[in-house]
Every structure is written in structure tokens, then in C-alpha cells.
């Protein structure tokens, strides 16, 4: 386990020194919900505010020039991180906004354009989607009369592609899928699915919330049209997300939010719009947050995404192995490391996840319990909720051991009495 110096990484995250419920070391295993932030990200934001703060793209004075340059440099960093062109990176407030942006923009598209969705068209999602990549499509389907159809999941937590060709049929205009499930840890075979999508000429939207933070993602290699992810899950600040889209698509799509800084000309009657990314960034942007995200990307690059991935794979493997030794425990999701990320969901016979999570919290271990914003998936697997441990670069084997010991203690606490 020497891909990089994990204890040096831990030292960069001040919150890891916190004591929980009295005197317990914080064992943070909830990075799938939101990651912690290194000092360098906080410093980048502070430096922006104390040295360069002004409205980017809106002033000719020195601070405004500097703010513009630093903000655009952050865009450049994010673009390079995912192998994109700089103008293909749109800053949003979150992955949720990114996906809604695409769905609303499609909904705004004129009849006859390739984005227009109408009754008879089909939108395809999957049973393992986070609500953020499900409900916007339900709503778009409702508004347009299109049909919402989905790929199922198999009992071992994989996407069922056996009927993919029937589901992704000629009527299909959009396929919206998650890159990695935030519950199961499953990584979906995007290039394979892309073939079905391309065959029918549909648009492919990828929810990359759980992939971009954890392993190298290159949009040129993924054969998709849009990807969405959040800054706060990849060491960045809250309040910033990213939509990447192919330039020729972004430049043709109708805008979503309208207002200042995204217009070409405006009269009282109507307005015309700038090309992407500005077209989709109405208003004074979330400058400090974009800058913080740029610093997060610098941090991840300094460690190296390949090493981070290796580290997480080893930890996850250990985590699954050790948890599986607890007789009452059932892993929900794949138990092999083939196409699998560092998210481990499980149930414990006779103990509700809420109670388990509460006990773990008492020992300083932060996990997520509940439906994980993937309620249909819970119903599919006939569980009310699961307990989820999610790993990141600052976790180590001691954290995994703490989890396992914690689960055993909790079990004995509830079932032993």
C-alpha cells in the first residue's frame, strides 16, 4: 500500500484531526456524499477573495482582469483534467444543476432541431440512477410526452444489458446513465453501451459524479456527449459543478438559465446568446468555487489519478474481504473488483442501517445510511436502506479495520443484549 504517502495526504486535511463524540478519531467513510478539502483548496479560495475578487468578464479594471484570468485558468485546469477543450467546460453549481441544464435545454429546443423531444420519443435511464439522474428525465418526459424506459440491474449489482438493444431502440433520443453507481460501486461499461446509443443516433449523458473524483476519466475515450460531476466530491468547494459537452452540441443547444454575461445582444423583446461556455453561465459566476475546484484538480494531479485509483482498489478489496467475514453481513453490489469503485454498501441482519450508522458514529466512524438518493434501487433489492462506506485517497487500512471492528461492536451491542 505505498502508491503514495497517505499520512502526508491526511496531514493536508485539517478536519481529519477532529475528535468525534468525545474522544474518537474521525474515520471519515462518507466521501461518496461529499469529500473533505485539503488546505490548498481553502487557500486558493481565500487568495482569490483577499487579492483578486471582482466580477469576472464584467470590468476593465485590474482586479476584474485578474479575476477573469484566474477563473478562466480554473476552467483550463478542469478541461485538461478530463481531456476536454476549454470551451467545453461549463461551470454549474452542482452535478444536479448540470443534468437539469441538459434536460431543460433539450426541453427548450425547437421542433426540428436534434435536441427536440416529443411524444413518441424515448428517454432511457437505469434502475441504478441517483435521483439527480432520474427525476430530471421523468420531468422532461412528462413535459414532452416522451416515454421513460430503463435498463434493469442484475442480482449481483450489474447493469443488465441482455435487452439493451430492445430498450435503446430507434425511438430513443437520450440515454442518461451513471458511470459508477453511488450505492453498488458498480462501474458501467460505457464504451460498450455507447455502441447501442450510437447505433440509434441518440444523445448520451453520463453522470460522472462517482468516477471523475476517483480515477482518470478522459472524455475523448468515453464515447459520450455530456458528462456531469460535482466539485465537492473531488476535494473542491461546495457550490460548483461541471457540465462537459461536445462543443458542437453545446454551441447549438438553447440556453438554460438566462441573464447577464451570456448574451450577444438584447432588446426589450428578445435576446441572442453567446457560444458555450458563456451561454450556460448566466450571472456573476461562482468564481471562488471554480478557483477552488482548480486547486483541487491540482492536488489530485499532484498525487496522480492512477495512484489514487490503485490505492482505492486495494482498500476496497480489503474492506469487502474483511466485511464478508461478518456472518450477519450482506454486501449489496459486486464483491469482485472487476469494474468496481470504492463504495461498499451492506446490510446487517436484524439491525436497521440507521441504528448501525448511529453506533458507528458513536465510535467516530462516519458512514452514510439510508436510500442514498437511489430509492428505486432499494426497492429493487428489497431493502429499506443500506449502510454505505465510501473510500477516498485519505483513507487507509486502519480506517477499514476501524469500520469492521465498529460493525462487530455494533452488532454485539444490538443483538447481544
Amino acid at each position, binding site marked *: 500500500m505505498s502508491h503514495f504517502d497517505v499520512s502526508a495526504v491526511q496531514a493536508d486535511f485539517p478536519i481529519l484531526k477532529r475528535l468525534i*463524540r*468525545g474522544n474518537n478519531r474521525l474515520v471519515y467513510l462518507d466521501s461518496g456524499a461529499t469529500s473533505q478539502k485539503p488546505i490548498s483548496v481553502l487557500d486558493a479560495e481565500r487568495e482569490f477573495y483577499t487579492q483578486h475578487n471582482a466580477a469576472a468578464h464584467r470590468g476593465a479594471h485590474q482586479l476584474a482582469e485578474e479575476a477573469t484570468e484566474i477563473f478562466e485558468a480554473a476552467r483550463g485546469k478542469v478541461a485538461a483534467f478530463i481531456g476536454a477543450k476549454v470551451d467545453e467546460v461549463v461551470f454549474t453549481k452542482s452535478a444536479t444543476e448540470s443534468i437539469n441544464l441538459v434536460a431543460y435545454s433539450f426541453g427548450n429546443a425547437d421542433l426540428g432541431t436534434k435536441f427536440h423531444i416529443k411524444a413518441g420519443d424515448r428517454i432511457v435511464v437505469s434502475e441504478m440512477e441517483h435521483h439527480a439522474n432520474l427525476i430530471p428525465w421523468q420531468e422532461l418526459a412528462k413535459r414532452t410526452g416522451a416515454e421513460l424506459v430503463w435498463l434493469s440491474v442484475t442480482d449481483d449489482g450489474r447493469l443488465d444489458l441482455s435487452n439493451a438493444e430492445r430498450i435503446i431502440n430507434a425511438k430513443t433520443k437520450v440515454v442518461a446513465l451513471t458511470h459508477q453507481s453511488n450505492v453498488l460501486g458498480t462501474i458501467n461499461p460505457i464504451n460498450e453501451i455507447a455502441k447501442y446509443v450510437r447505433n440509434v443516433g441518440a444523445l448520451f449523458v453520463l453522470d460522472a459524479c462517482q468516477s471523475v473524483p476517483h480515477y482518470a476519466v478522459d472524455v475523448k475515450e468515453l464515447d459520450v456527449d455530456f458528462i456531469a460531476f460535482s466539485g465537492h466530491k473531488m476535494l473542491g468547494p461546495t457550490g460548483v459543478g461541471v457540465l462537459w459537452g461536445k462543443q458542437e452540441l453545446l454551441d447549438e443547444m438553447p440556453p438554460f438559465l438566462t441573464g447577464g454575461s451570456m448574451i450577444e445582444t438584447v432588446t426589450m423583446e428578445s435576446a441572442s446568446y453567446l457560444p458555450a461556455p458563456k451561454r450556460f453561465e448566466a450571472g456573476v459566476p461562482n468564481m471562488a468555487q471554480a478557483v477552488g475546484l482548480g486547486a483541487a484538480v491540482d492536488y489530485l494531479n499532484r498525487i496522480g489519478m492512477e495512484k489514487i485509483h490503485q490505492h482505492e482498489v486495494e482498500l476496497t478489496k480489503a474492506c469487502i474481504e474483511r466485511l464478508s467475514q461478518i456472518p450477519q453481513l450482506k454486501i449489496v453490489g459486486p464483491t469482485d473488483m472487476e469494474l468496481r469503485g470504492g463504495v461498499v454498501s451492506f446490510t446487517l441482519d436484524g439491525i*436497521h*442501517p*440507521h*441504528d448501525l450508522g*448511529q*453506533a458507528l458514529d*458513536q465510535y467516530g466512524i462516519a458512514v452514510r*445510511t*439510508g*436510500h442514498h438518493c437511489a*430509492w428505486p434501487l*432499494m426497492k429493487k433489492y428489497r431493502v*429499506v*436502506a443500506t449502510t454505505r462506506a465510501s473510500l477516498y485517497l485519505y483513507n487507509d487500512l486502519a480506517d477499514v479495520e476501524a469500520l469492521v471492528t465498529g460493525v462487530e461492536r455494533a452488532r454485539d*451491542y*444490538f443483538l447481544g*443484549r
Partner: protein
Amino acid sequence: MELDSLYQEVILEHYKRPQNKGLLPNQTVQVHHVNTSCGDEITLNLKMINGTIAEISWDGVGCSISQASTSVVSELLKGKDSAAALAIIDTFQAMLQSKGSDLGDESVLEDGVAFAGVAKFPARVKCALLGWMATKDAISQSLALTSNVKKEQR
């Protein structure tokens, strides 16, 4: 240890042997409540006779706190009239929202005081309230039913 202040013996007892679990027929009102943040669900049947709670039966899935607290409320309110029942529910709710300052009046809440510790865990307050809010809702609905019937009779 703080975990014990949350998981009182009484709570774990009710969790293991929940009272009135399993829906009984002939209810006056049936309600279905969901804890939207975790997915826990409860269905509750309330049977009123002459303005008095004759029976509360329920079913559902949930954590020990929500199961035990539903068990407690279903026992506690049996035989009470609507007004008294609603007052007790308010007392329970106030205790849970007190952030730990209100330890509950055992003469009113009986086993319900065991949930006083939950108030210190804001994320769990909803669990403890699930069955109680369902009961409150059911009582309100049954009152509305009665007043409709009365209006029709006039």
C-alpha cells in the same frame, strides 16, 4: 456511554417485542407515512369509538427508534379521547424538539420518556416522531370525518 442514553433498555425492549404490530381490520382511518430521508415506512390503522381511541395497530419497516416509538404510542393512547391524545402527542413532540433540555414527564408519556435522549441526535428526531405523527394525522382525519358526518346530519 452516550449510545445507551439513546438506546434505552425500554426502547430495545419495544423494538424486539413491538406492541400492536400487525394491522387490524375495521379501522376508522388508515394512514401511510414515510421518512423521506431514509425510506422508513409505516401504515397505521386507527379505530375510534365514540370519540375515544379504541385501537391503534400498525405495520412497517424502520429502525429501532421508529419501531419502538410507534409501539409506545400505540399502547399509550389506547382509551384516550382525541383531545387528550393530541395533547400527549404535542408533549412528546416538544420533548423531542427541545434538543435535550426537556426530559419528559413520565406521568404523561410513560415509556415515551425513554426517547428523551433522541433529542440530542437531530437526525433521529424524525425516526422517533414517525409513528406519533402518523397517529396525529389519523386522529385529525377521524375528527374531520366525524364533523363531516355531523354536518351531513344537520
